[in-house]
């Protein structure tokens, strides 16, 4: 904005003693010298965002937590208001309600002024955990273990059958609830007996994919040397729990003639942001950005099948970390179906396809909160509208309530279920008895609340397009 531009060389700067000063003739800006209110720092500057908030409270009407929790002050407080309090008082402590924010990020999509609410929440939460939460507390370690799901999942994947038994062994779960605060109301997700990357290696990895992609291009009549290469960010859940989603992605992309590579990767960081474990998230982000940015340089795009993973790479990384190549990676990251909608004639292919009922005839679809900011909350419903043999019904705009690790915490379980109530109710009224969503933890909640099996849109796309 020109209001804050530096004054020109002829600026006198001294308007107050000017005898011609007349309040009815406002300062035209020629002699305006902006005051630097806050000294330079290496932190991301949240000031313009805080200043953009005109307190319309639209964000608050989108907050699923504030709708059910009388103690939660809502995103407007957690973001711009708390940020201002921090600037004016050096001893200001971040309010502990920041830990009740579930990081659904719906407030971002709500704000008509573009206030980076979730960036403010992530920053405040990181500060709270860093400076105010005892590193000896059960809560800290419980959160840290939940946030680092990938580590537990990695161990479990070595002995999946034993892990599946042990993780849902009643007395152990009772003890986890009492001692750790991990609710025993939920069943732990099953670990696959073969991880996605184990399967991928058996398919010949990148070399195998190149071969299959070329065959597909020939079949489709595309140029055989077409520049169609993607790097798959499978995330932890497709790797350890639902490899069928990863397999569907590979098959669908190869069907369209894309060569798939699966680079080294850690967790996207989503559960870590939500728990204020920003250092943990950064460690993983460094791995991901490093491997992805090399591939982006070579012309690959990064594709995620989980909307929270794509959200992390696209938005949270550049908002929270300054890592070389991070902006390039963010710009080249897409959600899996979105990318095909942009680059392929997906609508027509789906329109001409049909599916039998191998998955289900009718699906109750829930759009994950993290799909919203990416403009993807309607994607599956609109895409499959024209697919013969399958009906997709949107179960409404409410949040599922689990928000990753949030609903796993004993003290938040009830709240999580209260938020999810509307979705359960709508799922109950929908014709389908199979759920559909892009988000693995929403899927957990859908299954927990209704008992439905839950599918990823890629699985239906695979059924429709890949023979």
């Amino acid at each position, binding site marked *: 904005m020109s209001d804050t531009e530096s004054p020109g060389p002829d600026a006198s700067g001294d308007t107050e003693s000017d005898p011609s000063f007349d309040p009815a003739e406002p300062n035209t800006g020629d002699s305006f010298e902006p005051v630097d209110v806050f000294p330079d720092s290496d932190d991301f500057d949240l000031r313009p965002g805080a200043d953009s908030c005109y307190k319309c409270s639209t964000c608050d009407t989108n907050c699923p937590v504030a709708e059910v929790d009388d103690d939660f002050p809502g995103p407007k407080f957690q973001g711009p208001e708390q940020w201002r309090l921090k600037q004016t008082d050096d001893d200001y402590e971040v309010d502990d309600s920041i830990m009740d924010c579930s990081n659904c990020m719906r407030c971002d999509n709500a704000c008509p002024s573009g206030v980076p609410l979730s960036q403010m929440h992530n920053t405040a939460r990181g500060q709270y955990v860093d400076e105010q939460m005892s590193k000896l507390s059960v809560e800290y370690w419980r959160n840290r273990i939940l946030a680092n799901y990938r580590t537990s999942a990695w161990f479990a994947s070595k002995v999946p059958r034993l892990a599946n038994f042990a993780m849902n062994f009643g007395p152990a779960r009772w003890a986890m609830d009492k001692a750790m605060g991990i609710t025993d109301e939920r069943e732990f997700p099953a670990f696959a007996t073969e991880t996605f990357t184990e399967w991928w290696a058996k398919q010949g990895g990148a070399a195998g994919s190149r071969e299959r992609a070329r065959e597909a291009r020939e079949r489709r009549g595309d140029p055989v040397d077409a520049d169609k290469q993607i790097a798959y960010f499978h995330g932890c859940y497709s790797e350890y729990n639902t490899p069928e989603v990863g397999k569907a992605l590979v098959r669908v992309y190869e069907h369209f003639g894309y060569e798939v590579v699966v680079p080294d990767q850690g967790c996207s960081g989503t559960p870590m942001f939500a728990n204020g474990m920003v250092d943990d998230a950064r460690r993983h982000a460094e791995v991901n950005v490093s491997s992805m940015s090399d591939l982006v340089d070579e012309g690959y795009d990064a594709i995620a099948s989980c909307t929270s993973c794509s959200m992390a790479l696209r938005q949270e990384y550049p908002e929270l970390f300054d890592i070389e190549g991070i902006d390039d990676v963010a710009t080249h990251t897409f959600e899996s179906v*979105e990318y095909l909608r942009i680059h392929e004639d997906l609508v027509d292919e789906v329109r001409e396809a049909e599916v039998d009922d191998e998955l289900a005839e009718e699906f109750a679809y829930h759009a994950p909160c993290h799909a919203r900011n990416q403009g993807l909350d309607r994607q599956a419903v609109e895409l499959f509208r024209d697919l013969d043999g399958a009906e997709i019904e949107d179960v409404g705009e409410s949040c599922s309530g689990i928000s990753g690790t949030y609903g796993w915490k004993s003290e938040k379980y009830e709240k999580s279920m209260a938020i999810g109530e509307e979705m359960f109710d709508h799922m109950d009224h929908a014709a389908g008895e199979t759920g559909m969503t892009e988000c693995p933890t929403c899927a957990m909640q859908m299954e927990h609340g209704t008992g439905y099996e839950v599918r990823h849109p890629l699985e239906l796309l695979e059924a429709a397009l890949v023979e």
Partner: protein
Amino acid sequence: MAIESAVLVVGGGLAGLTSALAAARAGADVRLVSYKQSTLRHASGLVDVLGYTPDGDGPLRDPYEAIPDLPLTHPYRTVGVSTVRDAMSLFDETVPTYRGDHTDLNALVPTHGGTIKPTARYPASAAAGLASDDRDVLLAGFESLVDFDAPHAAAHLRSAGVPFRVRGATIRFPGDLRADAKVTRYARLLDTDGDVTVDGRDRPVRTALTERVERELDGEARVGVPAILGDDHAAAVREDLGERLGVDVFEVPMGPPSLPGLRLEDRLFEALDDAGASFETGNPVVDYDGDGRIERVFVEKNGARIPFSAEEYVLATGGLVGKGVESNREGVTEPVFDCHVPHPADRYDWFEDEAFGDHEFAAFGVGTDDGLRPLDPDGNVEFENLRAAGSVLGGYDFAAEKSGSGVSIATGYAAGRDAAEVVA
């Protein structure tokens, strides 16, 4: 490649939604993209057509009668009275929970400030509150909802000379809701008739609220409360409270964030879905390709530019508040397609010194031809396949005229209808 549709509407407010709906109902393949969630929840939920003339005469009895006398540059003159009527019919068909379609005449609806707003349509929830009704009114405000001071609003209405007795009382909303509880919290509690703690006992909220309002009633036939009576089940909540109290209960429309606005938004998006249209929100249109004709536009997502292409485009990005028109020290611009926005060169001519003066900036926006296509400084069409609708249009001051919703609906309808005709 690009994400394709026949018609692409840019903007998710009342103009964009009406435009997409009109085009979709006419059989076109329509997609709507909106930077953020619709701003309808900023609106009171009242749908006006014209309350005052540009000279400030009014409140007008019949808005339609006044349209032919508006200046030629007014958007209503561009589309014509019969299009305004067709557009309102589309609205009426789409939103059956609204009232006022039985007459051309304006209704007089009390606002949360105690003023009276001339409006063409109003939510059924506000129907029992009309100022033309001579039954006595109790306005019941809630201590924690400071936007509505019931005794003050009542006094204001009395001094406006309403034909009934009106009193205001402030009560405590039952339960221990936090002082700044969100309107959605009240609505959800009432929707589900959830329990609240009153004097140490758990009571269903509707029962507890009824008791508190009842204590204040003194023979009034109707009770007005701030517009928080439920979201998904608003009609049921209102009727239930009315039956318990033995009076008509109505909602007083409130400022943002507004539940009547939110309910209208939900209804319009639902209608858009039913009509087979596609839509997405969350990211802005930032650029376009094309010269004289728009080939495609780009939606920016965290640095990535996603191409969307269509045959016909509708620009419905809002005005100065909605950021569809922007200004700085250099001038006034339309940021997406850089359409010309007429304005005086000297920015001290943009406004008057009096706060409520006749500011020129209030009517800033693009000028168009008869088909709502924006014009360049020489009076030529900027793009043959771009139409503008809603407050991105210039030539009217909706806040002073009380014509914001009507212009959005009428021009949105016209733009959508005409775009659909081209692609048919």
